[in-house]
């Protein structure tokens, strides 16, 4: 039986997950600036270099970083096994991923083969190092809960997505964008969104929603079958894409149905939650649920419009669903980790989680983020909206960065001033 997760030092050091959370909004900021200086007619094409760069600043830089940071922290709790050499892995994979992503952004924009090659090295190395370490942690698990199954499945998809991504980068390096590139790009994006991020979120929601909001538990059918059913759908979709294109709609319907059902379930569970608190994280979950529903329907609808709306599907699902959940999670995890580590060191006079992040600023961040999402969707019809929406997105990322840093400043201040050792009251 694995005992590492229950030892006194089970939690990885604060810096391991925190560096990912601090960096994520900065990549969001880069994406926002690139969008601001772009033209909506360019961004409507999914294969435009600018679209690809912005999409990856968000998917790898924001979503990927947040997911990896959260997994570093959560695996010991969810799985009971510490990732081997977690400090080393978190530090070096972070450096590789950051340099890799920056190289991808600049290399692709400048069409520089050497810099793009560095991107392939950094991103491939960083992701595989992290996934490999998690796979080793998961290998020793005896109690294979639905959440553990979902995390394992999503990591399988993640590995395949990374290899496909490397192939795609390679074709940019050698300047050979052929038909195979287009097919792989399509599989890469659909599996990344639904296979890696989607399945991971569903698996974690099984635990998190009933726990943090005292909401009703997910039904046993849902917990036992949904991940398997979605994975089957994704494999079916792959086979149809390769060999029977006219049937892909059926696989898409299959996948979208389960994600739509998940979105509805989340909404209903939040309605039935026993905790009356409505903080910004509840708003983020609700936003995610609405955008996932819209995105799932549009993904099907798009089939009848020669994939004209595929970028809009990306905004609805990637931005509205996945990103909303990630931001909501950051708001819960960061202040808790700061409290947890300080308390573990013996400090008692610690501000509560709600005192670490200003409520007003978190709602302002949510408002500017939501406004930017709606603006991006309508920028398809009113191109002038792109700039103002980008501006709103930039502000939301700056606010998020501030809200992430605020608890860290509390942490530093307490370590410096040691309030529990303050003897001034006795003078």
């Amino acid at each position, binding site marked *: 039986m694995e*005992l590492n*997760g*229950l030892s006194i030092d089970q939690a990885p050091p604060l810096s391991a997950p925190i560096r990912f959370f601090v960096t994520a909004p900065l990549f969001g900021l880069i994406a926002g600036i690139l969008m601001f200086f772009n033209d909506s007619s360019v961004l409507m094409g999914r294969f435009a270099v600018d679209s690809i760069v912005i999409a990856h600043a968000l998917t790898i830089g924001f979503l990927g970083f947040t997911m990896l940071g959260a997994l570093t922290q959560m695996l010991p*709790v969810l799985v009971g096994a510490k990732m081997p050499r977690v400090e080393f892995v978190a530090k070096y994979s972070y450096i590789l991923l950051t340099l890799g992503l920056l190289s991808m952004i600049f290399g692709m924009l400048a069409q520089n083969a050497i810099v793009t090659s560095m991107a392939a090295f950094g991103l491939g190395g960083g992701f595989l190092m992290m996934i490999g370490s998690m796979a080793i942690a998961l290998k020793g698990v*005896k*109690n294979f809960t639905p959440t553990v199954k979902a995390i394992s499945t999503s990591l399988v998809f993640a590995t395949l997505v990374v290899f496909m991504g490397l192939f795609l980068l390679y074709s940019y390096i050698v300047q050979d964008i052929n038909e195979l590139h287009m097919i792989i790009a399509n599989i890469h994006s659909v599996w990344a969104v639904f296979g890696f991020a989607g399945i991971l979120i569903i698996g974690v929601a099984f635990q998190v929603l009933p726990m943090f909001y005292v909401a009703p538990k997910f039904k046993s059918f849902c917990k036992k079958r949904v991940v398997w059913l979605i994975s089957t759908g994704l494999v079916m979709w792959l086979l149809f894409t390769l060999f029977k294109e006219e049937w892909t709609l059926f696989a898409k319907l299959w996948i979208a149905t389960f994600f739509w059902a998940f979105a509805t379930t989340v909404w209903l569970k939040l309605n039935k939650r*026993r*905790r009356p608190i409505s903080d910004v994280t509840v708003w983020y979950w609700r936003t995610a649920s609405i955008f996932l529903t819209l995105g799932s329907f549009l993904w099907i609808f798009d089939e009848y419009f020669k994939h004209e709306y595929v970028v809009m599907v990306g905004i609805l699902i990637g931005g509205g669903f996945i990103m909303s959940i990630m931001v909501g999670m950051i708001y819960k995890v960061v202040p*808790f980790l700061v409290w947890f580590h300080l308390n573990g060191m013996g400090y008692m006079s610690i501000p*509560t989680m709600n005192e670490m992040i200003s409520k007003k600023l978190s709602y302002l961040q949510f408002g500017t983020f939501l406004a930017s999402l709606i603006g991006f969707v309508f920028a398809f019809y009113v191109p002038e909206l792109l700039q103002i929406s980008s501006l709103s997105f930039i502000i939301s990322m700056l606010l998020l960065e501030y809200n992430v840093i605020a608890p860290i400043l509390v942490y530093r201040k307490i370590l410096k001033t040691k309030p529990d050792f303050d003897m001034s009251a006795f003078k």
Partner: protein
Amino acid sequence: MSTIKEFLTSDHGRCDEYFADMEKNATESLEGAKESCEAFIHETEKHFQMEERVMFEEFESKTGMTEGPTAMMRHEHAQMRGLMAQMLEAIEAGNKDKFFGTTETFMILQQQHNMKEEQMLYPMAQQHLSAESDRIIDMMSSLIVE
């Protein structure tokens, strides 16, 4: 009769209900939540003592592991007791922000703790103590909170 794992897992759910009642009352009136806060603390304390005074003791004497998972769980119980005391202090002081800030921290800490118990410690305990399962559950059910 249920297993040790089922018994203690369902007790976690019972404590969650008390927690939700307390928060619900506190949204209406912080002062009015004092009684439900005390009830919640009493029930949670009972759960902690069922573990510390019965199940952990049995587990430790059976396996010889006194510095392992049970030590970690006792440490987290101490952290949660500290937060529960702060909840009562916040009610006494009429400080709603402090109260909900503390309940939020408590909730995440406790759920993380419960998850570790339900997924690791309880299955281990069940495995080592299955022969005495009925006796241990009887002892836990009849425990009087000290």
